[in-house]
């Protein structure tokens, strides 16, 4: 018998299984799917930001040749169904749920008002021009000032434009501020922007009248949760719905949440009795898919004269748009709960008010609330360092949470109470490594220097990245008759390389070769239940579920092997893809007359916290306000890496996305609530050539104690500190002028204006 090496795929840079298909053009996206006899839907959307609906005239549209149906709110029942919150489902937020079609009022430009179903999308768009909508216009609420002035309120029954206040508390903030040597206070703003994944959303829905079943293609992220919402809205049993996941080009938190169209397309299919397809176009996407960020923070930081951070206190305002959608609370609450980040700040009293405004509803986007809150905190620390005359690296390092403080409780947030602890980590070690790799000491000589007409600056900062949201995830393993293994997962693929990673974990757990394993995911028919992909959770939660299921499966395999070999279960062992008893063995193939099928759930309530430090070197052209990123470095400890290659890609991508939010991406509204950035010519995304010099180093210093893999949710988080670090670097570059940016994005015109104003002050 030869000695076999155990599998060790986990931790190796295995190339993505998915890529062969994608690179050969064999990906299969929602718009590739067509059903026989299918019709096309387009949505008639509100052209106005705020108003009362007086009349919807659909007769002319209905009469157009090729149009099969024009559906308005009154076709959906006495009141249309609403979209509930999936996360933080507080009863006091029920009044702000979005109706599937505008009902009595419109509250943002782009809100669905009617659905046209026609032979082709072009005919349906022709019909849009024939719909008459009479609206009694109301003043548009477009930001904090107008929300508070309340010339109009979005929800008259509620009476104000303030939906809810989140409060994060730890220690005694007022006491800490009372004894502080230095208090730094300012107002910070992060602009509205959004996830902007590759191809817009889409659905194909088909209703089987005879069996009363609904099939929906185009599910992503949280198929099971969405199935429950859809079932309630359609008033059918959730098991009468099958949701199918196809390939998608990224999600970033936004794709796969429940939007009105998630209901409208299946509802339309049931009404017309034929399959209905809807593909969102980019303009719709910009005005309909969740927006994000858009906050103003009035926050103060208390410090001792030797640079210890004593407390954080203040009020933030989140412009949540017109409705509270499925996960609309996550960003606002995170702003308050995670402002302390990786720093030991014992006294916290932070609040976030969620405002309703006549803009597109908002939801999570990679690093929700965390990108914003890190911007505020990292700016405050740099402002404090400059007041105290301290080195910016020294002050940070001094305040980092230490390993001996773990588990370290963060501020507790209410009303939907959540308590969470930082789990493990050597924060100072990662900080030091980042300084060394970046060459902080040498590059410090550049700070504020004018070289060839550009001012140079550097900055450094640390962050934490939460992951692995519970409560559970499911995995089902099936040993097929031919001896191969099928893995069914509740996690979903949104471009993060899920198939590859899950195959690695399974191959190691089952000691099977890669090519004998098939991973299927995200469709509701695969496993009983599933939670999906959000909060950096799929690897940790899905992967841990696989480990549990693998133990069960091995047990069953031994049982079947023992039966075949005519001995007791305890007498056999698994050897490669055979079950052995002494010198007799049976192969996995043909082991039992039926496939062997097991399912297991991994339960976990504790989050994981990956953490890291990033540093940047920029230069600013004072003649144009242009900022060039010369170098961007990220060092992160993720506990355990399943696949360094895919993680590295995620780390770099996250930073580029963060640079997009820092410099380019901005959803701009005018005072009437009209979106000014309706195409990718006006909403600027970073392109491949914009930020070439990015490095990411990933470490496995401190595994998470909270799951059997030791892994921490990772890959999402590189985005989190980017806005703060870049802004600090710009401020550092322009220190001779005393420029201190407090607002993103750092568009060239904004940077130029800061420089111009500073020069005028100096003269």
């Amino acid at each position, binding site marked *: 018998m030869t000695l076999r090496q155990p599998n060790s795929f986990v931790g190796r840079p295995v190339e993505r299984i998915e890529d062969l298909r994608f690179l050969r053009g064999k990906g299969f996206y929602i718009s590739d799917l067509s059903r026989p006899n299918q019709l096309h839907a387009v949505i008639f959307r509100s052209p106005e930001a705020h108003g009362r609906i007086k009349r919807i005239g659909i007769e002319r549209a209905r009469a157009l040749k090729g149009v099969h149906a024009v559906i308005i709110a009154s076709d959906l029942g006495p009141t249309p169904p609403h979209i509930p919150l999936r996360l933080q489902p507080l009863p006091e937020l029920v009044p702000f749920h979005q109706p599937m079609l505008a009902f009595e009022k419109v509250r943002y430009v782009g809100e669905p008002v009617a659905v046209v179903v026609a032979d*082709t*999308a*072009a005919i349906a*768009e*022709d019909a849009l*021009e024939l719909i008459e909508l009479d609206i009694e216009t109301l003043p548009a609420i477009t930001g904090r000032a107008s929300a508070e002035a309340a010339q109009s309120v979005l929800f008259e029954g509620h009476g104000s434009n303030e939906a809810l206040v989140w409060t994060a508390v730890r220690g005694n903030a007022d006491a800490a501020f009372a004894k502080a040597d230095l208090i730094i206070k300012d107002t910070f703003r992060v602009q509205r922007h959004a996830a902007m994944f590759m191809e817009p959303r889409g659905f194909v829905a088909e209703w089987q009248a005879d069996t009363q079943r609904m099939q929906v293609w185009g599910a992503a992220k949280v198929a099971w949760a969405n199935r429950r919402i859809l079932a309630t809205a359609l008033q059918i049993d959730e098991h009468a719905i099958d949701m199918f996941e196809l390939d998608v080009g990224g999600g970033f938190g936004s794709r796969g949440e429940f939007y009105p169209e998630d209901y409208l397309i299946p509802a339309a299919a049931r009404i017309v009795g034929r399959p209905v397809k809807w593909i969102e*176009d*980019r*303009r719709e996407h910009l005005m309909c898919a969740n927006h994000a960020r858009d906050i103003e923070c009035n926050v103060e930081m208390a410090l001792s004269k030797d640079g210890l951070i004593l407390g954080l206190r203040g009020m933030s305002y989140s412009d949540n748009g017109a409705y509270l959608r499925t996960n609309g609370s996550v960003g606002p609450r995170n702003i308050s709960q995670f402002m302390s980040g990786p720093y030991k700040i014992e006294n916290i009293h932070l609040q976030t008010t969620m405002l309703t405004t006549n803009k597109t509803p908002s939801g999570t986007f990679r690093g929700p609330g965390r990108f914003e809150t890190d911007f505020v905190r990292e700016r405050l620390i740099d402002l404090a360092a400059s007041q105290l005359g301290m080195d910016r690296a020294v002050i940070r390092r001094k305040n980092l949470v230490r390993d001996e403080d773990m588990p370290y409780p963060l501020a507790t947030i209410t009303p939907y109470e959540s308590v969470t602890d930082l789990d493990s980590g050597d924060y100072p070690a990662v900080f030091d490594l980042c300084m060394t790799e970046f060459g902080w000491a040498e590059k410090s000589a550049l700070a504020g220097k004018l070289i060839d007409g550009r001012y140079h600056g550097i900055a450094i900062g640390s962050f934490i990245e939460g992951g692995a949201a519970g409560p559970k995830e499911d995995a089902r393993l099936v040993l097929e008759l031919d001896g191969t293994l099928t893995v069914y997962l509740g996690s979903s693929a949104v471009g993060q390389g899920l198939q590859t990673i899950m195959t690695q974990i399974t191959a190691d757990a089952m000691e099977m070769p890669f090519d004998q394993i098939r991973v299927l995911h995200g469709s509701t028919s695969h496993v009983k239940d599933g939670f999906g992909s959000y909060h950096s959770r799929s690897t940790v939660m899905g992967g841990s579920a696989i480990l549990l299921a693998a133990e069960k499966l091995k047990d069953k395999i031994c049982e079947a092997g023992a039966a075949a070999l005519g001995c007791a279960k305890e007498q056999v062992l698994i050897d490669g893809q055979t079950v052995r008893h002494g010198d007799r063995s049976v192969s996995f193939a043909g082991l039992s007359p039926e496939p062997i099928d097991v399912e297991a759930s991994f339960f976990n309530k504790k989050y994981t916290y990956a953490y890291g430090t990033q540093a940047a070197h920029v230069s600013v052209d004072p*003649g*144009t*306000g*242009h900022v060039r990123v010369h170098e961007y470095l990220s060092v992160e400890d993720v506990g355990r890496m399943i696949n360094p290659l895919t993680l590295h890609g995620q780390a770099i991508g996250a930073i580029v996305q963060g640079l997009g939010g820092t410099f*380019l991406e901005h959803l*701009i509204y005018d005072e009437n609530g009209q979106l*000014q*950035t309706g*195409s990718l*010519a*006006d909403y*600027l995304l*970073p*392109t491949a*050539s*914009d930020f070439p010099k990015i490095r990411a180093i990933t470490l496995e210093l401190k595994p998470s104690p909270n799951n059997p893999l030791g892994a921490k949710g990772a890959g999402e988080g590189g985005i989190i500190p980017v806005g703060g670090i870049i802004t600090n670097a710009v401020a550092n570059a322009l220190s001779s002028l005393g420029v201190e940016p407090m607002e993103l994005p750092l*568009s*060239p*015109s904004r940077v*130029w*204006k800061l420089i*111009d104003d500073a020069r005028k002050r100096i003269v």
Partner: protein
Amino acid sequence: MKLSPVRYAAPTSVEEAVALLATCDAKIISGGQSLMPIMAFRLASPELLVDLKKIKGLGDIVLDSEGLHLGAKVKWIEIETDVRLKTAHPLLTKAIEHVAHYQIRNRGTVGGSLAHADPASEMPAIAACCDAVISVVGSGGLRKINAADFFVGALQTRLEPDEIIVKILLPPWPATRRWGFQEFSRRRGDFALAGIAAYFDVEPDGRATNAHIAVFGASDYQRRLTGAEAELNGKKPTADTFAAAARAAAAEVDPPSDIHAPADYRRALVETLTGRALADANR
């Protein structure tokens, strides 16, 4: 984002195309890179598209004693890859490098750009800077229009609805000419927030003469900045002269404001970019 219903024709001669334009609400389509997005947004819904693709003779690049002739159908990629032009008209090739992205440069055309007259586009800036002459054919026959008269406002030209641009002529370019081209855009390939195309010749005594400075992006339409040119003509091309010309340039533009750049910022860009373009010219 589907077009309104539209008919399509691909005539084989300019005369036939002109005749078709007169029949209804018709539009020429050349590269389609500006027209198609506008139609997809339903900002324009012409009844008929008249495609130039089958008309021969509109796609030539000819160099002769009159100068450089560019047919209306000449694509950006063809200007980029024509090795003669790097010396025959370096200002043109430099400017065209900045137009859009690879895919768009494979389709976008000289005639389409001139007719569309986006205030931030490069080709009209070169036309204005170099005193180009634009040849158009309509029901009244051939007309030649000086670039200085052709552009009249944002997306507005002297072109009549039934007229077709057939070519543009750029006057001969002396090898000793000094030139610079500068533009600033948010990302590579984006339309410029502001840009400057400039050249001047140098007299035997070292003084600058024949200064041509044209602005784009920071003005309603592409035009020469005569005040800035006056600061340069007859002076030694020094840093001080350039700074004076740059200030004059900023003073004589009246830039638009939009979501990407307020007017005062665009004005500042004109000063910065004029200074840099002239410094480049002097290298």
